[in-house]
């Protein structure tokens, strides 16, 4: 036999394989091209606001202190993040703000802003002195150059100067300076706390001398960062996941028997149960939250019930599948001793399915922590709500970052915990409790 025909056939075969191996990537590429057009990714580049990205990133690890003068009554207010809670109490100010008839704000690197009686000046090294005069008729500004650089945004009524050192805004009513610093200011104690600015050693000394409780409650009640509230929110999120998951497991177990071929007495009942599970799963937890919020109002219970409903669908399906896969021999063995029906389930079925069920339930516990965050963001509450609100109000990205870090840690913790529990229970379990 000559191998010629075989060679030709194989070459042809490879030709087809080549086509195939190009076809798959080609289809994927085409799809991406379509997505590129459909999602207008080309236009995205110009729409993307890198300024926002920069604000976000830099704000995530820094904070700004506002020095604001009311141009009408001359009062000056220094506050961290411009919030009431971060306000320096009367007479106090950080070292770089010198209060007086002329208030001098030193932005560092020889950038000096001075609030005078009628003028606000900004001395920028390498550029010159900018003099502005806010008044009834608008903000009259004099610049050292005729051509304005793009970091100065001036109009008749408003002047904004943004430099690396900080930012000055002057309008008819107000003059405001932002100075940026690294770090999460006031993370431990707010300005009004006696422990603010204390070194760790001093703090420890105070703690040892019986002030530990006070220090803790000052920290816990921090008005700026609200650690106590955040902890509550995290707890509420985990609570939703916990109640939803285990509640669903308890509801789904008996229903799972109804939907399992080998246990369900009636075909029609089984069919109904299965479609019921599909429905519960198909309607997402989020929509359940909205539906339930009429009956139960906002709060963690509504979130838990929403998770419970969705997961009843998922668990019901999985449990019934697990039940359909049980080994009949064990049941028969128990039956042959004259055991009653309940005993048959207890010893013939439950020991077989517990490991499967437990591992699935615990797996869901972790993923539901994420769901609870999302559900909370939409209606329920918890850390998800805090996060969405913090993002939506678009200030304090350090707060957003704080929440994100906490959420990630929370989910990873739940992941570790459920993994640990899974190993522990399934290894040492003697047929469930």
């Amino acid at each position, binding site marked *: 036999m000559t191998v010629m025909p075989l060679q030709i056939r194989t070459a042809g075969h490879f030709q087809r394989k080549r086509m195939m191996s190009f076809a798959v990537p080609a289809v994927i590429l085409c799809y991406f091209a379509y997505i590129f057009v459909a999602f207008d990714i080309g236009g995205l580049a110009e729409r993307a606001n890198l300024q926002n990205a920069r604000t976000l990133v830099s704000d995530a690890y820094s904070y700004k202190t506002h020095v604001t003068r009311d141009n009408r009554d001359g009062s000056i207010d220094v506050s961290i993040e411009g919030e009431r809670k971060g306000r320096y109490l009367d007479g106090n100010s950080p070292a770089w703000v010198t209060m007086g008839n002329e208030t001098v704000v030193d932005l560092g690197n020889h950038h000096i802003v001075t609030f005078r009686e009628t003028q606000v000046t900004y001395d920028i090294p390498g550029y010159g002195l900018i003099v502005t005069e806010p008044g009834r008729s608008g903000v009259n500004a004099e610049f050292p150059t005729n051509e304005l650089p793009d970091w100065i945004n001036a109009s008749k009524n408003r002047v904004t100067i943004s430099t690396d050192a900080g930012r000055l805004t002057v309008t008819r009513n107000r003059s405001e300076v932002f100075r940026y610093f690294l770090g999460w200011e006031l993370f431990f104690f707010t300005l009004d706390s006696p422990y603010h600015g204390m070194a760790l050693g001093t703090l420890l000394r105070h703690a040892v001398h019986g002030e530990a409780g006070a220090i803790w409650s000052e920290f816990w009640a921090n008005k700026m960062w609200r650690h106590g509230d955040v902890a509550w929110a995290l707890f509420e999120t985990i609570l*939703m996941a916990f109640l939803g998951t285990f509640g669903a497991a308890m509801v789904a177990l008996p229903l799972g028997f109804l939907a399992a071929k080998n246990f369900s007495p009636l075909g029609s009942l089984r069919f109904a149960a299965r479609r019921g599970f599909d429905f519960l799963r198909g309607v997402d937890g989020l929509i359940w939250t909205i539906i339930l919020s009429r009956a139960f109002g*906002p709060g*963690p219970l509504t979130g838990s019930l929403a998770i419970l409903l969705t997961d009843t669908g998922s668990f019901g399906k999985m449990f019934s599948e697990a039940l359909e896969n049980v080994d009949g021999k064990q049941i028969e063995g128990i039956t042959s001793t004259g055991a009653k029906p309940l005993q048959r389930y207890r010893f013939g079925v439950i020991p077989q399915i517990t490991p499967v069920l437990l591992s699935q339930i615990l797996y869901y516990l972790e993923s539901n922590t994420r769901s609870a965050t999302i559900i909370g963001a939409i209606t329920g509450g918890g850390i998800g709500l805090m996060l969405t609100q913090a993002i939506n109000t678009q200030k304090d990205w350090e707060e957003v970052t704080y929440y994100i870090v906490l959420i990630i840690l929370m989910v990873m913790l739940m992941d570790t915990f459920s993994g640990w529990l899974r190993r522990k229970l399934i290894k040492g379990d003697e047929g469930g409790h």
Partner: protein
Amino acid sequence: MAELTTADIQSNYLAQVRSKRIMNTILLIVFVALMASGFATANDRNAGGFWNGLPMLLDFPGDVISEAVERAHLLPGYFVKYLPSLIETVNIAGASTLLGGIVGLVMSLLVTRGLAPSPWLVGPLRRVLDVLRAVPEIVIALVLIFILGGGPVPAMIAIALHTVGALGKLFSEVNENASLKPIEGLESVGAGWVQRMWLGVIPQVAPNYLSYALLRFEINIRASAILGFVGAGGIGYDLRNTMSWGQGKFDEAAAIFLLLFLTIVVVDQTSSNLRNRLTHGSAKGEIHA
């Protein structure tokens, strides 16, 4: 080991039973207490109580359904109106699954011990995957909406990132079960890392990969619908707008809901059929040519 008498065995066993019984009882009590106090806490922190709310459970669906039934003739029109949004939602899921799957595949090969080209990268990359998995999509989406503006892209990126984490881990578990023999065979002919992975690993694991990716696609459709709620486009956005308008647009809300629900069910069914076929043999012909 000394021989145990029957009496010894009996008393040992009884002691073991007793301690197990105590353990189980404690576990049971702890669990029941957790559930009960958890429920009580949640109930207390909720605006409406559980028992008061129960009778009103069907009020909201009732409102929606009655309005939808009243204007049933309008529903087909709404289906057409919202079809593009639905397609957008499905596309977000599709694109992010594909994108996340491809990156996840590469990541999974980089984090599987025995396959990874640089073993010192395995640990750090695994942590990266853990973090990607832990971040809820909504977090990334909200941040990205801030930078990129609303629309499908933030949702796509957010879901894709999460998908990288999820599939990366699942794929690497599959990889761990792949036989190393073909890979060693390829190494012995002087094949590079990419060739070893592509020709030695992928053919072995492709069916499992596909099955996991399909499951992820199901999940991602829901995720993309949800992200619409926070302004990321697609049908979730329309659903939220009509739902929160309340009476007067419930018919539209119902139509959108039906559209979304049917899509989810259809995708679920198709993909679970496909997955069954992929994992339980009958995957004849080369998946990977």
